[in-house]
């Protein structure tokens, strides 16, 4: 149906002649594939550790019956109790908490409103015909993004702790490919977290006067740094998301014996070399 200006109407309808659907389709594919992998990895509860490396999906030690029963000494939370249901893996909990941060993230909101909800699917492309209320009705919870940020900030030191422990095996300091991968994972997630719009607001954006006193000037410096990260928020969002997954894949394949690590402890070493 066309309006009086010759504009077509209806869901997904547009007068655009470019390939506007590539962006939302790629987003849907990228996010969908990640979520499928996460669901599979989280429920599986196996192959989450190899040698000194522990998957960021599982930044806590889990059941001792695990396939790769590495030393629990480096685990942040220690052993999980025997009575804990095996189906509720640490990955489910520790994926859900930072997951809320990503779900309410201002960048991801754009991504999934366009890719999954068609609100709208693209610029100047017809949205789903609903009684639109924006983020005032059911979506009012998006306003609590800063609380999910606090959760994400709490989890950051744990990621760094686990990455730091990957530089030690059998009481000997060293470095391995896995240590580097885990460290890059920490940096990317830090870059994503500190580029958050809510953080940018809290750190200095809420001020109207940056020059009023020393504290405001310091906050302006922090705000400028956050702004630099914020401009690259989308990039950090995707890189950290997929590096997180890649880290899990690396440790998984290593623990399954399909991939060796290269490190200062054993040279090129397979999972058996760590036992």
């Amino acid at each position: 149906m066309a309006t009086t200006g010759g504009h077509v109407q209806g869901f997904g309808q547009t007068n655009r002649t470019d390939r506007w659907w590539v962006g939302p389709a790629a987003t849907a594919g990228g996010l969908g594939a990640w979520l499928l992998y996460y669901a599979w990895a989280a429920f599986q509860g196996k192959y989450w550790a190899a040698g000194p490396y522990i998957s960021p999906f599982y930044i806590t030690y889990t059941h001792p019956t695990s396939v790769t029963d590495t030393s629990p000494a480096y685990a942040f939370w220690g052993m999980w109790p025997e009575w804990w249901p095996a189906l509720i893996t640490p990955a489910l909990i520790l994926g859900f908490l930072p997951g809320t941060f990503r779900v309410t993230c201002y960048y991801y909101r754009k991504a999934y409103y366009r890719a999954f909800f068609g609100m709208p699917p693209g610029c100047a492309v017809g949205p789903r015909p609903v009684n639109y209320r924006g983020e005032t009705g059911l979506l009012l919870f998006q306003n609590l993004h800063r609380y999910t940020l606090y959760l994400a900030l709490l989890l950051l030191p744990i990621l760094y702790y686990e990455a730091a422990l990957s530089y030690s095996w059998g009481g000997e300091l060293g470095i391995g490919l896995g240590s580097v991968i885990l460290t890059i994972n920490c940096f990317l997630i830090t870059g994503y977290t500190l580029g958050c719009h809510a953080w940018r607001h809290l750190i200095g954006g809420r001020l109207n006067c940056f020059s009023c006193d020393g504290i405001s000037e310091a906050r302006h410096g922090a705000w400028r740094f956050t702004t630099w990260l914020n401009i690259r928020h989308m990039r950090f969002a995707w890189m950290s998301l997929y590096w997180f997954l890649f880290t899990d894949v690396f440790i998984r394949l290593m623990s399954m014996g399909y991939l060796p690590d290269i490190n200062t402890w054993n040279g090129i070493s397979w999972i058996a070399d760590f036992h």
Partner: protein
Amino acid sequence: MSRQRTLRVWRGDGSSGQFEEYTCDVDEGMVVLDLIHQVQKHHAPDLACRWNCKAGKCGSCSMEINGKPKLSCMTRLSDYEEGAVIQVQPLKTFPIIKDLATDVSWNFRQNERITPFTPPQLPEDGDYRMQQVDVDRVQEFRKCIECFLCQDTCHILRDHEKKEGFVGPRFMIRVAQLEMHPLDTVDRIPATRDEYGSGMCNITRCCTEVCPEHINITDNGIIPMKERVVDRFYDPVTIVLRRVFGWGKRA
């Protein structure tokens, strides 16, 4: 060397109309507005099109070119495939007056709803003082040329037609410009939520994508305003801090 391009133009008024095609000679470096002028000169002198500076600074020649909101004076013909027909239409969000000219007066009425800049009483020496660092942010918003492309592409106004509930991105950054100004004394947060409709925006960033002045409308204007609304109405911690310690109140 002169070549030819075909322009497909919407011709009509607010009640009816149709597309008509015109083929004209074009030269290297021409923009879509040049092609429209060629059509006016050689084929349709009654073709209505608003324009003024032809330099991307007056915001008059906004229209939809191949379905995308753009300034016709800043859109080169060479951006489109050689020989392909270029389609131009009026902005969808506003009522059509004739052909490519639309009535954008709704925007001016939104501007009137916003309390103007209200500085404090002049100091005794008669000079306001502020530092550049404090006005850097608001100067970005002052680049706005009021082309209303952001208003046109905003799906809340364009497709959902919620013009009563949301002033649109252009006026969200106008409010942000005033709210962030170090000398402004008006508390604009309640109106931002209740009258201007900050909660209606779902951050899909189309306004930022079409802005010819490259103003980061979403990240620097709308989201900071939404966060200030959160401070005031949704964050229990800042609500308590403000009530108990007076934290975050304007000087």
